[in-house]
């Protein structure tokens, strides 16, 4: 139902006139503190009926916090919330749902053990005589998914889906329930252009039905494509609210970070060194028969739709999964990588795609997390050198500009983007000759993104090689020296040197 080209046919519908109507929801001096952290500072904001309102800001600016106050996840520390002019407490998720407010949160929050349909209807089940109507719900769920153009089965178990697919389920659920007010917190992080286009169609449809949509993203082009108005948050305070038509990318970035950033993808040509990794006909869970080489100084990009098998492929290279066929040659020597520790010893580092599940010890300190890979160096004899441990942690926090109350603060208290910096940072501290980044810039703000690209350049200059997985085509397209396209577990196309235009790459990934 969605045309691939739609994504570029990007002018928003007639801009809504916010001033005219009573705001659906108005925030007055909304305030939130987490202990010492002042996450939101007296924010005044209103949302008009049927508008698409984007919110942008650096990592840790308070965007997710704002959303959590509107959906009753957290309780505000101060200020008022007016729903159609009337003050509302908004103290619980139930209350928000009752008003018709729903959100797709930054981190996927679904029940992995339940089916897609059960997740779609959780808390809103269809019953007859008090008994669940299992079949009816699967049918209805399938209808919702089909209607939205999501190619998913309603009776699949959620844990069998990739994180991107799970994101779609979360979206579908919110879309069926956010009857008045719907919030998307970085919905496209794990989505490819394809799914993103479907999502945008959905959002426009909702708008047409009179639903107010709040849209949070670090991809500013999406803001311009979709939104009517845009608000900028900086350090928990509102900087401005403008009509999208009245602003441009550069001024948004200036508003967000109070300085300007070269928005180009930072990339310097580095002479390729010797081959670091060669895989020949490698097969494993979710992919088969993949061959490629990676040279020092080279960025090898892997593109594909969600579920194409890229993550499984790199995890197999990293020893997380056992390979079922093929071979690997590292530095010219055939190797059998037994496990992750083995891979790391041989100079491979992996920044996994899901920071929550795979990257972080959430209820431990930032310091432990950034140091976890290098503890074998922070020792004196058998004992830890606690001074060195502290120093290493502080250095990482400074170098990566991780916004945290202290090195002892739990990783869970950091904003999404700052959590991502920890995961990247721990491997920089460790060092490697082959870095694998699986979706490294998901949820990362423009400033940090530029910083991460600069890090890439530094690594390459130091003679390392990089495998970069991204579902964000502009990113892989621009950064990759060699671009491989995955489709359904197979490597279907490879481009080095001159690449075909992005549309062609997308077509290869889809397999039209």
């Amino acid at each position, binding site marked *: 139902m969605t045309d691939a080209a739609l994504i570029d046919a990007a002018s928003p519908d007639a801009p809504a006139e916010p001033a005219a109507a009573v705001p659906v929801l108005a925030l007055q001096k909304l305030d939130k503190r987490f202990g010492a952290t002042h996450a939101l500072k007296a924010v005044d904001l209103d949302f008009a009926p049927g508008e698409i309102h984007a919110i942008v800001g650096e990592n840790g600016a308070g965007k997710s916090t704002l959303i959590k106050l509107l959906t009753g996840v957290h309780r505000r520390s101060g200020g008022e919330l007016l729903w159609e002019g009337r003050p509302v407490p908004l103290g619980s998720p139930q209350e928000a749902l009752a008003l018709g407010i729903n959100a797709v949160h930054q981190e996927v929050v679904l029940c992995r053990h339940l089916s897609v349909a059960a997740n779609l209807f*959780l808390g809103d089940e269809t019953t007859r005589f008090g008994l669940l109507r299992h079949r009816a719900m699967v049918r209805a769920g399938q209808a919702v998914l089909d209607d939205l153009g999501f190619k998913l089965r309603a*009776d699949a178990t959620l844990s069998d889906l990739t994180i991107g697919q799970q994101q779609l389920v979360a979206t579908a659920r919110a879309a069926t329930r956010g009857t008045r007010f719907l919030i998307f917190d970085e919905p496209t992080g794990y989505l490819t252009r*394809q799914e993103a286009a479907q999502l945008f169609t959905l959002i426009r449809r909702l708008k047409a039905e009179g639903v107010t949509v709040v849209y949070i993203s670090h991809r500013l082009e999406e803001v311009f494509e979709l939104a009517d108005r845009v608000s900028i948050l900086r350090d928990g305070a509102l900087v401005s609210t403008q009509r999208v038509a009245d602003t441009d990318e550069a001024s948004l970035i200036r508003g967000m970070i109070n300085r300007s950033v070269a928005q180009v993808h930072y990339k310097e040509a580095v002479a390729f060194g010797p081959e670091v990794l060669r895989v020949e006909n490698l097969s494993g869970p979710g992919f088969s028969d993949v061959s490629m080489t990676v040279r020092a100084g080279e960025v090898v990009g892997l593109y594909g739709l969600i579920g194409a098998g890229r993550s499984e492929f790199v995890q197999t290279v990293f020893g997380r999964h056992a390979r079922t066929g093929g071979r690997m040659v590292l530095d010219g020597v055939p190797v059998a990588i037994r496990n992750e520790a083995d891979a790391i010893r041989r100079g491979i580092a992996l920044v996994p795609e899901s920071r929550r599940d795979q990257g972080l010890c959430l209820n431990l300190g930032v310091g432990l997390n950034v140091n976890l890979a290098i503890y074998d160096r922070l020792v004196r004899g058998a004992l830890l050198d606690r001074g060195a441990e502290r120093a290493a942690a502080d250095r990482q926090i400074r170098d990566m500009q991780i916004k945290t109350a202290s090195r002892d603060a739990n990783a869970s208290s950091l904003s999404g983007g700052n959590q991502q910096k920890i995961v990247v940072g721990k491997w920089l501290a460790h060092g490697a000759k082959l870095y694998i980044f699986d979706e490294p810039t998901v949820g990362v703000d423009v400033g940090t993104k530029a910083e991460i690209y600069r890090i890439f350049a530094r690594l390459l200059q130091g003679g390392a090689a990089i495998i970069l997985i991204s579902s964000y085509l502009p990113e892989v397209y621009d950064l990759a020296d060699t671009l491989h396209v995955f489709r359904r577990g197979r490597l279907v196309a490879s481009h080095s040197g001159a690449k075909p235009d992005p549309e062609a790459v997308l077509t290869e990934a889809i397999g039209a």
Partner: protein
Amino acid sequence: MTVQTQDPLSTAAPPSPRAPRGARMGLVLSLTLFGLLLVLWIALSISTETFLTERNLSNLMRQGAMVAIIAVGQTFVIITAGIDLSVGAVVGVSSVAVSLMMVHGFGIAGAVALTVLMGVAIGAFHGFGIVQLGLPPFIMTLATLTALRGIGLLVTNGATISGLPGSFTDFSLSSFLGIPSLFWMVILVAVPAYVLLQHTRWGRYLYAIGSNAEAARLTGVDVKGMIYLAYMVSAGLAAVVGVLLAARIGIGNATQGEGWELQAIASSVIGGTSLFGAVGSVQGPLLGSFILTTINNGANLLAVNPFWQRIITGGLIIVIVYFDQLRRKRR
């Protein structure tokens, strides 16, 4: 142009409506476990002359009934990723409560109803400790385990309460349609438990909470209420078992039911329940507890040294759960 997101999960065929994974898994697993139970039964029928007698089979049903019932309750709690260590103590205290009330002239019906109510109240107290005070279930129910035994002993001063009405104790000996009444109680508990777990919203919510309590809360599920529910079911069923125990051994005694919490948990896990929550069924713990009962019954019939019996039980738990994990992974 219609874009096809190619995905192994999406097929052209219309989706066949299927029960949620919990129930489906439950069915497959039950078949495997039921197979194991059958194998045990056949082996014992061959190796002893006495196993396959009407009398032994009804003994078996009576012996397994009580742990089976608390294992069902325990499963409700484990599905929410909790645990209820107090069920054994609740059994003991309930046997005392129902006996005392009967001895002091409450009618049988009144005494039983009040005892079960007391059990439900204990469950509500667990809910309170876990939800309102934020205590880990393990600790909350460990604390009440200790305290409830103390209360039971205090009330009886360590003595057994006897002199229960014959019409009450006769229940444990009676049968209906050739099946011991005690086993009928299992059915009477299992059927509504099954409906509750698989065919009502609350059942669905219990799984959701065990899977991801935060996600459930965000979709408006009354997480606290459901946790209360699970512990009230568990303690309520333990109180029912306390009543049955009093009927069966003809006394009330606060030290009875010791260690039954671990038997119930083992039964539940053997029956496929995951201690990490969100996986479990009603038939699983039933099969699990009858497997354990059959092992003991068989060992007694074969005159196995009682110490060997423990070693065998421990070993079998490892083996059964191991194969269950394997099967689960292979899917």
